[in-house]
């Protein structure tokens, strides 16, 4: 029989308690149980980065963490980080530089880019590339994404 565990976490600042099957990963929980479909599901084995979310301030793969492991954690998603305005400059730059086409990779890219800028407000192009190296984009060819992040570095 499937084991489920009572799990309490905060998601974008709100406390949530649910009984969650042990095998459910965090991104499926956010999407299917909470309706937060901004975090995407691509490869489900850690390669593409589409599922990137923040747990206790650090970016992680939502497909490589069990939802029950988030018990007691603070989880932030693209929805929360958009609403709070934390990503506003990056979002504007992505828009202006055409850094998205289908948009599937964009939430993960924005979280990875924001993570870099929090640690290092003045990264060079190589450092930007290294930091988003774990995020696949099948549309843009990456140049425009790096340009957009550089734009925020240059003009704040």
């Amino acid at each position, binding site marked *: 029989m499937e084991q489920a565990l009572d799990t309490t976490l905060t998601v974008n600042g709100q406390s949530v308690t649910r009984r969650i099957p042990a095998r459910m990963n965090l991104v499926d929980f956010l999407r299917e149980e909470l309706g937060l479909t901004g975090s995407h599901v691509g490869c*489900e084995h850690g390669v593409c980065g589409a599922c990137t979310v923040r747990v206790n301030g650090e970016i*992680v793969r939502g497909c490589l963490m069990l939802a029950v492991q988030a018990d007691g954690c603070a989880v932030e998603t693209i929805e929360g980080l958009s609403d709070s305005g934390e990503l506003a400059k990056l979002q504007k730059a992505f828009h202006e530089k055409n850094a998205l086409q289908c948009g599937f990779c964009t939430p993960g890219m924005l979280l990875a880019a924001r993570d870099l800028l929090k640690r290092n407000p003045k990264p060079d192009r190589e450092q930007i590339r290294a930091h988003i190296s774990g995020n696949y984009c099948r549309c843009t060819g990456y140049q425009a994404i790096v340009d957009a992040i550089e734009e925020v570095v240059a003009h704040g």
Partner: protein
Amino acid sequence: MKAPSFAYAKPRALEEALALLSRAEAKALAGGQSLIPSLNMRLSAPELLVDITGLEALKGIRLEQDVVRIGALATHAEIERSEAVAKHVPLLAEAVQHVAHPAIRNRGTIGGSLALADPAAEYPACALALDATLVVAGTEGRRQVKATEFFKGLFETALRPGELIVAVEFPAQLKDQRTAFAELARRHGDYAIVGLAAFAANGTKRFAFFGAADRAVLARHAAQAKDLEAAKQALAKDLQPPADLYHSPATKLHLARVLLERTWNRLSTPR
């Protein structure tokens, strides 16, 4: 794909974890950055996952006399930011830059990587080059295993069923010792095509290659060679790399020689 169903336990004490892990169908879950992909792809189907991330005894990085003791649960990100590692185990500080991507580094652990023993992973080679010692625990008690005795084959180690790695101890680097790390990968953060962790101290050299055999290996003939040319020749006796999807054995051996050359010169330059 989605993981098959399993039971989940998160013990607070090492003894409790070891008791749970002594069951045949149980598996330890650390960072989950290798185990969860294998569950999602249904390559593995344990009945019980024992989440060890709550075990304090497996945490922390600290200098203890002449070794840096790294708890099995230290994440790649913690190793990257550790002052003790940067100062006393510079080889590892260099190597960690090549381990996966930021979001994975925030959860993946050194204990998980050593236990997995992926032939293209960075840490096993560092452990060989620096002659590190693993501290492991089971229901029968603790024991110490030299890195040179630990890696037994493709994803195979000296861990007995139910045993956990508690920590790994790296000798703190002395003034007259030098190390160098080099890796070739298709993309930054990917597993290596070929990589090399190298160590030198008056007269002794150790070259630990990864991505060049079924496990990380010490190139013993090359380490005995008098000069670089002889070492490059001798490497053919140490390595018979298997082909991967993109590279023939000959290409891999060539690339291993390129890395040997790059690190050789750094080992002979004072820090």
